[in-house]
């Protein structure tokens, strides 16, 4: 019989025969194997299935600890205790069994029944958690009576705990249960490390260093009888001996750059206010303190957050979960004048000696812009202009610069880009220029806007962390540093893993002729009579320098009495800076009275701690 294109069925006869033979061979091999397993070795495997039901039980790893820079323990692992119940072991009447427990630990019977009913009980021989987080006294009572409590046991769960509940919650972050969505994306190996329902870091340091803190989970073979009851391990069992126990490996310890004393002080200083504080070492970029208020209490999250508490957090209009130090961008106001001065001197549009006359206002086109001092400052040079925060002087410098030069110099100090601290949701801030205005509003840049940017208003936005990093570059000779929170990582046995290394993001060329007059101005702000922060921030302990800022808040609605945001950025000692502190207090009114005293207290505490 002829097939298409000249082939006949005869042509396939050979391969057809071979296929048939192969097919039969495959099934013969499979059948032989089944015979081998079920008949030849059937009794052996049956014995294994009857007596040796080996399960690999996961052993959670102890989470690594967190220390501050002076080895003060901030976070560690504590045991939490859960009450387990095996329904089939607790007698015929579950209610009687539960009643026994309820009587022992003065628990509400209704609540206890609820806990039992809400479980699905896929296997009545398996234990389930009847009550989470037993108190120590409850654990003691139950353990003492365990003999008459058939079917009940206590399970120890390693749990995160924080030594200082009020401090550094934004730095440390929160723990949270692994959600089903993240779990789906895990590989097989990760699923072993992160079983559903365990806790991992969801923000802050806990999240950033999760892989190191986590450690490695272990495995322990356990025997279960036919009905899923766990049994003692007989050491002679030959199949069991192949399942070796794999010990859990503790997580690495994290040593932060944070100085806990400063951190706690910062927390106290900001208490009841809305705002943020960042203290860092301008020489290395190490963050000494980072606080944002209002905040939350990390400890409440370690085993699942209470619904009411969570609701209170997310419904709070002041957003306590929001880390203002890195997630909020504000107009830098007058703190920005040092940056404008840097731009002016670098571009050579103004000299150190040159004086600008301030009559209290400045005319540009048909617009008249005011100085904050209505009477005017008179003729001021650069140092006086910074010390007294004269707006008119900086209007003039900005006008001479133009927006492009001003924006370019501003970006050199890291503004308008993430600092790279690598916490989630870091804000970029904003350095406005013509390109930005075109892309957002498709409008031409106006000369008046340049003046606003020159005194840190208008569309200009910075985060408190950016401001500290930018000022650090100004005073450390032009090194733009990456702010870091990790001092050192150590294995649980104390072996150091990654020692701290200063990371330079960029080198900004700033000649001494640019830096010196600006630093003199910043010193005059605090140390000279007439400086804007002389009364509030001058210290007898150490020479502080800095800059105040008062950011105008545009009232959105009828609330006309909204107060301005208060800024202060300060450092000390002024001739060889070791600490840089930036503070914003929302609606703190004046940078001098509202913010600079906080910086003074932090710097003084740092100085006292040194000696």
């Amino acid at each position, binding site marked *: *019989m002829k*097939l*298409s*294109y*000249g*082939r006949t*069925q005869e*042509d*396939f006869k*050979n*391969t*057809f025969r071979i*296929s*048939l033979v192969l*097919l*039969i061979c*495959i*099934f013969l*091999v*499979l*059948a032989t*194997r*089944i*015979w081998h*397993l*079920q*008949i030849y*070795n*059937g*009794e*052996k*495997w*049956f014995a*294994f*299935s*009857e007596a040796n*039901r*080996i*399960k*690999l039980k996961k052993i959670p790893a102890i989470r690594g600890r967190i220390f501050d820079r002076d080895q003060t323990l901030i976070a560690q692992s504590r045991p939490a205790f859960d009450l387990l119940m095996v329904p089939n072991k607790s007698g015929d009447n579950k209610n009687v069994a539960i009643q026994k427990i309820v009587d022992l630990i003065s628990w509400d019977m209704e609540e206890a029944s609820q806990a039992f009913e809400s479980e699905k009980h*896929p*296997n009545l*021989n398996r234990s389930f958690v009847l009550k989470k987080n037993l108190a120590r006294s409850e654990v003691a009572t139950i353990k003492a009576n365990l003999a008459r409590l058939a079917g009940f046991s206590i399970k120890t769960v390693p749990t995160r705990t924080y030594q200082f509940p009020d401090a550094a919650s934004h730095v440390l972050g929160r723990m949270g249960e692994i959600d089903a969505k993240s779990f*789906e*994306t*895990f*590989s*097989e*190996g990760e699923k*072993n490390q992160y079983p559903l329902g365990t806790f991992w870091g969801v923000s802050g340091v806990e999240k950033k260093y999760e892989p190191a803190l986590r450690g490695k989970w272990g495995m322990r*073979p356990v025997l*279960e009888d*036919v*009905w*899923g009851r766990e049994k003692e391990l007989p050491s002679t069992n030959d*199949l069991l001996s*192949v*399942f*070796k126990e794999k010990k859990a490996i503790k997580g690495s310890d994290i040593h932060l750059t944070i100085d806990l004393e400063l951190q706690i002080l910062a927390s106290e200083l900001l208490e009841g206010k809305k705002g943020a504080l960042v203290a860092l070492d301008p020489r290395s970029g190490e963050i000494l303190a980072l606080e944002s208020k209002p905040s939350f209490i990390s400890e409440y999250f370690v085993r699942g957050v209470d619904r009411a508490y969570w609701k209170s957090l997310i419904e709070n209009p002041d957003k306590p979960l929001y880390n203002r130090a890195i997630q909020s961008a504000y107009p830098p106001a007058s703190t920005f004048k040092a940056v404008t001065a840097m731009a002016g001197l670098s571009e050579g549009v103004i000299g150190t000696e040159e004086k600008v006359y301030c009559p209290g206002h400045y005319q540009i086109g048909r617009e008249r812009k005011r100085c904050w001092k209505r009477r005017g400052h008179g003729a001021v040079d650069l140092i006086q202009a910074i010390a007294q925060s004269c707006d008119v002087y900086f209007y003039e410098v900005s006008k001479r610069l133009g927006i492009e030069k001003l924006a370019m110099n501003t970006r050199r100090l890291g503004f308008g880009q993430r600092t790279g601290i690598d916490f989630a949701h870091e804000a970029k801030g904003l350095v406005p220029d013509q390109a930005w205005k075109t892309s957002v509003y498709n409008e031409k840049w106006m000369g008046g806007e340049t003046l606003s940017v020159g005194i840190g208003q208008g569309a200009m936005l910075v985060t408190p962390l950016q401001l500290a990093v930018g000022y650090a570059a100004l005073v450390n000779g032009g090194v733009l540093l990456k702010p870091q929170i990790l001092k050192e990582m150590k294995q649980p046995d104390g072996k150091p893993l990654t020692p701290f290394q200063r990371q330079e993001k960029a080198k900004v060329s700033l000649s001494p002729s640019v830096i010196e007059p600006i630093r003199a101005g910043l010193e005059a702000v605090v140390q000279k009579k007439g400086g804007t922060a002389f009364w509030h921030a001058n210290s007898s302990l150490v020479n502080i320098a800095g800059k105040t800022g008062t950011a105008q808040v545009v009232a959105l609605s009828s609330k006309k009495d909204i107060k301005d945001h208060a800024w202060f950025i300060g450092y000390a000692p002024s001739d060889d800076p070791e600490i840089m502190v930036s503070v914003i207090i929302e609606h703190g009114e004046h940078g001098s009275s509202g913010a600079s005293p906080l910086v003074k207290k932090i710097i003084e505490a740092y100085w006292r701690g040194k000696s």
Partner: protein
Amino acid sequence: MVRFWKKLKLNQADWIFLSCVVLICLVGLLNLYSATYSLSISKYFMSQVGWMTLGFLAVLVLMLIHYHLYIRFGYLIYALVIGLLIAVVFFGKSSGGSQRWLSLGFFYIQPSELAKIAVVLGLAKYFHTHHQKRKITWSDLWVPCFLLCLPCVLIARQPDLGTTLVVLLTGASMIWFIGVQRKILISVLVLGLISVPLVWQFGLKPYQKDRVIAFLQPEKYPDSKGYQIIQSKIAVGSGKVWGKGYLKGSQSKLQFLPKQHTDFIFSNFAEEFGFMGGLTLLGLYLLFGFLGLNIAMSCKDVFGIMVSFGLMTTIIIQAAINLGMELGLLPVVGMTLPFFSYGGTSLLTSFIAVGMLMNISIHRLTHSA
């Protein structure tokens, strides 16, 4: 009306072949009910019933479509599936470390499953339209090898080793079936042997190597993979001659057996129905292969022969690899047992193959155009 039905010639169809599939499906459902007994019956069992119903509808529809239509659209279907596979690279949904699924708005599909059929159609069309009276020589191999390797590369990078293997073996057996020179056969075998250490060194991911090591010496590597193999062996072996009885398999009921409803479904069956049950099921798959081969051999044109041989081979290869793995004869690769394991897309693909085979069986006695 009567004429219409007569024209369809349904009486010529190989109904024994379909009965064999129905029988495997029924036993499979019975077994799936047992395997998911301690998980969630409603979730798995009912969903499987739904997919099977859909599958049989697909068989009925495909039975009525003359397979010569695929001669015309063979390359188009092939190109379409390749397009979907490429789309997975860019828009695929990742889960469990691999990227296999593609969202079609309201549901997800797994294009690698469709590739099994597309490759069969593509190769069959090529061999049908290219005159090759003689045996295939080296220079004839370029086009079919390209048709075969393109989807394999796309599936392998997802990564989905199991499906890659099935597609590759199916395509290779089709090329072999059309008849190749003996020297090519020998060269490929030698080349394959040489490439084993190379693939081991460069081609496999660490977790895949783990599986092979665990397979060779499960007792020495008691990690999760060795555990899986041992538990599967215990499940099968403990069934002995008659099995532990329906719903009484302790290995799966107490959740010792991982993936008891997908890749390791046969272990559950063998535990409860023993050697007798296992042998019966094996016989059903053998019958399926035999009848599939019979359809191929009674066909009157090259296209029909190649399509039916290819489709039968795809399913038999999957069954053989899956059973070999569950019985500890092959390393663990993700592979379902056709008509038996839980899983929508792979089930539907198998039914599509059955539907096409049924149509070919109708027309095998008629002379082709």
